[in-house]
């Protein structure tokens, strides 16, 4: 097994307590529109499969986030 140092943290080891037949995978989160696709790859970047699809909670644009942000409601304390 040969890993790039940068890849090391992305790798999950399959199985515990076994030192032989060690399988290594990468899991990449790929943003797609309002979704996040979790893709399973080998350490050589070969596609294995899609393991998870979930809503991307950061799908709002900056403009949308600003619109939802609101403001401190303090007008009643500053009348005159």
């Amino acid at each position, binding site marked *: 097994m040969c890993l790039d140092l940068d890849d090391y943290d992305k790798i999950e080891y399959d199985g515990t307590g076994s030192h032989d037949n060690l399988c290594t995978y990468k899991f990449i989160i790929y943003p797609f529109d309002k979704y996040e696709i979790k893709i399973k790859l080998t350490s050589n970047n070969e596609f294995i499969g899609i393991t998870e699809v979930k809503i991307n909670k950061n799908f709002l644009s900056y*403009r*949308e986030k*600003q*619109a*939802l*942000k*609101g*403001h*401190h409601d*303090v*007008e009643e*304390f*500053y*009348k*005159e």
Partner: protein
Amino acid sequence: MFYEKEMEPTLRFGDVVRGYISADIIIKQPILFHEKDDYNYKIEIELPRYSVVLTPCCSIGDSVIALAPLVRILGDFFNNPYFEKDLTNINREMEPQQALSPENWSKLQKQEQNRRLSEGKRYALLNYFIYMQNDNLEKYALKGHEVQYYMINFKDIRRIKCPLIQRPEKMRREDAIIQSKALQLTITARSELRDKIAYFFREPAEDKLLED
């Protein structure tokens, strides 16, 4: 720095100007029928000492400009030490506790305090933008303070027509329009004004959610 030391010979967004009358049009109700002789409206005209240019720089011209009168600040601002320290803090986003005096904050229920704290940094007093004190602006007394700060209210913007208002590149230093200019904001202050007024006129959250 809030104001430029050297003013450009052109009108810019946020400039303080003098010499522009301001008119309020008051109607008792919408005029839906034209057969009446008495439409029951009135127009109140005043000459504010100073106004602020609120037309974006690139849109100034065509003999028309949007102005807001520069008015005195509210004395209640001095109840809040964060504002009293620097009144232009009102122009920027702030923490929930900074938006209230310590006394008013302590009067809030714990649950309400937590709700506000969870919202994080935001604008407060959304329709106001404070203009820093300057020797060109008249002093006045307010709640025991001698004040030279002024403010504009984004809810109070009027349109003025004047044939002398031209594209910035066509204006000359000797033009009456340029003579009317009293103060020019720095790029930083103008940017803060642009950010706050843009936020004031932003798309409401409920519209955005309905659109989605």
